[in-house]
């Protein structure tokens, strides 16, 4: 029983980290079809934002709470700049976007190395997040609970924004049918930029949260990127619901594999499962049905 509860929580917490990393991608890749390989570096930027904020503000608790919105703004601003300068010119060349943003990621990593130095930096975990909480007989670290809660809040906020705000409705309109939305007077350029801002901002938030788990180095974001993409692919394009389910499922899967073999083999196992899964459902868990051929 204990083991099972423990499993459940590790699966959920691994999944919530994956979800935070993948949520922004499910917007930019899933809804806009842009493969942004610099997404990992936006996460990394979020990590360093948390670090810098703590250096400036001091108190770990306050600085964490301040860093979350700042991280969103920093990630979002970087995404916006990237969108306006490069990605906008490449919407009809998705594969080229992939390579260009990979180059941007390389540059950002080296910038981080030159600015903050190669050694990893550390963000102090606030007092109220230290230690664990007893839940059904297992100790769950408070940081994990915080990240799970943050993931829930981020998903809820994103869903609400997409559903109920005018900006969100525009985004959904453009995703649904770009041409029709244009004829309805929606500037798809502005919407694209806005979507990218939100998606990249979420990466920044994920980065801030990740500093609670590990240290921050220029390559921090890279390690999450491939997993995050797999979450979006397995979840199905354009579906936040899919990203949520896929993230939790992959987290649980990884955790179960890890229990019965090693973490290394678990990674390989998860990949095999995804390839087999895509054999069965090439469009992912949930799909937007369209009639278009492309």
């Amino acid at each position: 029983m204990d083991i099972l509860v423990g499993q459940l929580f590790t699966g959920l917490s691994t999944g919530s980290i994956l979800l935070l990393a993948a949520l922004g991608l499910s917007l930019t890749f899933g809804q806009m079809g842009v493969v942004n390989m610099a997404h990992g570096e936006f996460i990394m930027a979020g990590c360093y934002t948390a670090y810098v904020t703590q250096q400036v503000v001091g108190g770990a608790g306050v600085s964490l709470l301040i860093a979350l919105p700042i991280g969103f703004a920093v990630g979002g601003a970087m995404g916006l700049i990237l969108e306006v300068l490069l990605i906008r010119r490449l919407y009809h060349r998705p594969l080229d976007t992939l390579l260009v943003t990979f180059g941007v990621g390389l540059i950002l990593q080296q910038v981080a190395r030159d600015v903050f130095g190669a050694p990893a930096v550390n963000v102090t975990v606030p007092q109220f997040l230290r230690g664990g909480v007893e839940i059904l007989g297992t100790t769950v670290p408070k940081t994990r609970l915080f990240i799970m809660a943050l993931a829930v809040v981020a998903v809820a906020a994103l869903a609400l924004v997409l559903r109920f705000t005018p900006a969100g409705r525009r985004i959904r309109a453009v995703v649904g049918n770009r041409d029709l939305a244009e004829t309805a007077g929606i500037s798809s350029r502005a919407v694209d930029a806005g979507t990218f801002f939100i998606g990249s901002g979420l990466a920044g938030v994920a980065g801030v949260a990740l500093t609670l788990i590990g240290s921050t180095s220029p390559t921090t974001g890279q390690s999450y990127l491939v997993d995050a993409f797999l979450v979006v692919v397995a979840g199905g394009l354009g579906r936040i619901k899919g990203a949520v389910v896929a993230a939790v499922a992959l987290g649980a899967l990884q955790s179960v594999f890890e229990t019965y073999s090693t973490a290394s083999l678990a990674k390989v196992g998860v990949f095999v499962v995804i390839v087999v899964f895509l054999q069965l459902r090439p469009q992912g868990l949930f799909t937007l049905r369209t009639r278009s051929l492309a």
Partner: protein
Amino acid sequence: MPHRPEHRPRRAARAIAATAALIVTAGAAAACGARAGEETDAFEPCLDTSGDTVKVGALNSQSGTMAISETTVLDAILLAADQINAAGGVLGKQIEVIDEDGASEPVVFAEKAEKLIREDCVAAVFGGWTSASRKAMLPVFEDYDSLLYYPVQYEGLEASENIFYTGATTNQQIIPALDYLAETGVESLYLVGSDYVFPRTANAIINAYAEAHGIEILGEDYVPLGSTEFSTIVNQVSAAGADAVFNTLNGDSNVAFFREYANVGLTAEQMPVMSVSIAEEEVGGIGVENIVGQLAAWNYYQTVESEANAAFVEAFKAEYGADRVTSDPMEAAYNAVHLWAATVEKAASFAVDDVQEAAGGVSFEGPEGTVVIDGENNHVSKTARIGEIRSDGLLYTVWESEGPIEPDPFLDGYEWAADLAVAE
């Protein structure tokens, strides 16, 4: 492409035929090299000692993931070279250090090592960190009969005539750590490591040791290098309830591991963790409060009390800034340069054969204590130390071996290690 519906000969087929012909001619022209077992012409070293300088190479990763660690080693090498030069050089010649970037890739290490030997004609090379980089360089140094000084603790099971190992081998680090744990009454262990050669070998040794000494191994887990996801593993460690954890994680993984460890409520009193690759730098990243009281096994800490260390730390901080800390591999690299200079002085020659000949017994009063080159296996004798992490973030010695331990890279002196098997 304009369309011309005419008959065209199969050109590409002819091109292939022509290429094949070329291969045959090229083969015929070149196929007179040595076959297996035949003597090959020895490489003529191009070392030029006619001037008043002598070139040595420093080969460390200055870019890529390993740059974090390896640039500090480069600093220590340059410091040692400066000190030797200030004291008059080696055999009256000033040392000129040529530094190359290994870029954290074994292939680049091999390439740059060959460049340093064949193009820069250096007398010796200092550097390398990962075993992968050392394994990549080893054939190069053997083929071109040159010298590498390798300054990092490693998994042992190697002794090349062309490499001097100035970091600890397993009997100078892991076995003393196990002895210490056994002494303090530990009867069961949980093993956690990054998935690469050092942890795998270390854990094989630990398993053999445990079997011979009645210690129970309750679990053995590996994570991919750089992994930061430890919730499953820490859960398992916690559930297993071992007396202690032996940690061979590398670099950033330590941060995530210790945070998770502290967060589920595990402490040094309950279940101490013995780590073999945590230095002061990582302690800052983990957060002192998460790791205070935990143990580490090294040969050197910045806090080691000796005159030589005081001088080393002072000189290092003067050169590179007061906020810098010194670490075990840096100290080993610093020793390496001094050991090489001492050997050259003893041999009165820069020639590789002479240096190899003279190396046995050469000693240096290093920051960790006296280190002596073992002429049999090219390793050095080293003092083992168990350190405890205190609340100021520094490591303090709680136990040290009685004098330097003789290197035994193949663990020939340990009966229980006779049938060591690393691969599963």
